[in-house]
């Protein structure tokens, strides 16, 4: 195994493309090192992206924010402006692991690790975030939901990696929230999770919404039916029930050590309901 820490994006892409064996991009390393330790992967090359220009910066852009791929979740959580615009995303990223893990882990790593249970991912999907992908060719922008391809697999091509994630601007009277279910209060991987982002009109009626679920399918689920269930409502009880039902219907989970199919399906709906209430209040609605 080799360890490289390139200084430019082009060098990074070149290294990743040239290597014939197994490569790993190193962000915060909180997945990579665990996988190394467990012998799950034996890379021939590790490319540490943390020295690339701008990769650790948060920059305001077009009313939104561009989050460098190596920005740690701790750094993200300390940024009051991002938190004010996208509190659900910042909270989701803030749930990942312990204080120690927060000091290293990144949203880009969470996305590219492609675990169905990654906490940042549903919130990013609900937010309509866009990943900027660099590689041997020209950089391209990809909606985050198009990155994961299945457990542990992404749609990124050989030599490609994410340099930043863009959180867009949003209309007034918008709010987002993310909730996950874990058996303890910390240090667990989500058994089921839900993110809701919505916008209200002056009457408190939901005019736009995106609902995403985690840990209930091989990849994050963007549930249009769930959004439809609450658009045009003031999130009254029946709208919440319809939202929960649509979410449960969209689940295709597995039974494993962390939870049963039955449990995940049920709880995904419960979480969506609760997250929607928080998002609604954040948007200024009176739930």
């Amino acid at each position, binding site marked *: *195994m*080799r*360890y490289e820490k390139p200084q430019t994006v082009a060098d990074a892409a070149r290294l990743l493309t040239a290597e014939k064996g197994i490569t790993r991009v190193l962000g*915060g390393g909180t997945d990579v090192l665990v996988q190394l330790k467990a012998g799950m992967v034996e890379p021939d090359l590790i490319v540490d992206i943390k020295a690339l220009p701008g990769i650790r910066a948060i920059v305001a852009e077009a009313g939104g924010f561009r989050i460098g791929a190596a920005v740690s979740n701790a750094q993200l959580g300390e940024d009051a402006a991002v938190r004010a615009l996208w509190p659900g995303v910042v909270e989701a990223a803030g749930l990942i692991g312990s204080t*120690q893990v927060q*000091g290293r882990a990144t949203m880009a790593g969470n996305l590219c690790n492609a675990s169905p249970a990654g906490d940042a991912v549903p919130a990013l999907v609900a937010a309509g975030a866009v990943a900027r992908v660099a590689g041997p060719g020209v950089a391209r922008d990809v909606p985050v939901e198009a990155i994961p391809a299945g457990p542990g697999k992404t749609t990124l091509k050989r030599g490609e990696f994410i340099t930043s994630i863009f959180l867009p601007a949003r209309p007034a009277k918008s709010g987002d929230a993310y909730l996950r279910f874990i058996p303890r209060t910390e*240090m667990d991987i989500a058994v089921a999770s839900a993110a809701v982002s919505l916008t209200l009109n002056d009457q408190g009626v939901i005019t736009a919404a995106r609902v995403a679920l985690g840990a209930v399918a091989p990849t994050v689920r963007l549930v249009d039916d769930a959004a439809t269930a609450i658009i045009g409502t003031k999130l009254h009880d029946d709208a919440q029930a319809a939202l929960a039902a649509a979410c449960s219907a969209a689940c295709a989970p597995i039974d494993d050590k962390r939870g049963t199919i039955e449990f995940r399906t049920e709880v995904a709906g419960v979480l969506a309901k609760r997250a929607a209430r928080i998002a609604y209040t954040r948007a200024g609605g009176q739930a």
Partner: protein
Amino acid sequence: MSSISVSTTVNGDPVDFVCTPDESLLDALRNRMGLTGAKEGCGTGDCGACSVLLNGRLVCSCLVLAAEAEGAEIATVEGMAGPEGLHPLQRAFIDHAALQCGVCTPGILVAAKALLEKNPDPSDEEVRYWLAGNLCRCTGYDKIVRAVQAAAAEMRSA
């Protein structure tokens, strides 16, 4: 696997060491630098016994490659006590019996110090959530929370 040579700073002192590319910072601290204060309870980020500061950020040294320490500043439990004596947290842990076996203690002290530097007056709940990644199997955490609060109070009044 060819070795990498790394120049870093540990507890304020310059240190050079050689490591393999897949070696963790924890292994390098313990096996290359003889600093065995950080412990390996899991090697996978779950227990916090290996906690150190890396450029001022609290991290699990088992989740950092040793090679990443190049040019970095690392602080470990060995650097907590000064010539003037123990750090208030270290004293509070002894005075409040906040350790039983003590194997979690180095990691918890490093983590608690990082907390109090950021938040000198945390609530019990803030202490508990900050330390959630530091497992202690002996104490049930009660006396740990009390010791951190006692040290915080002392440091505020100092």
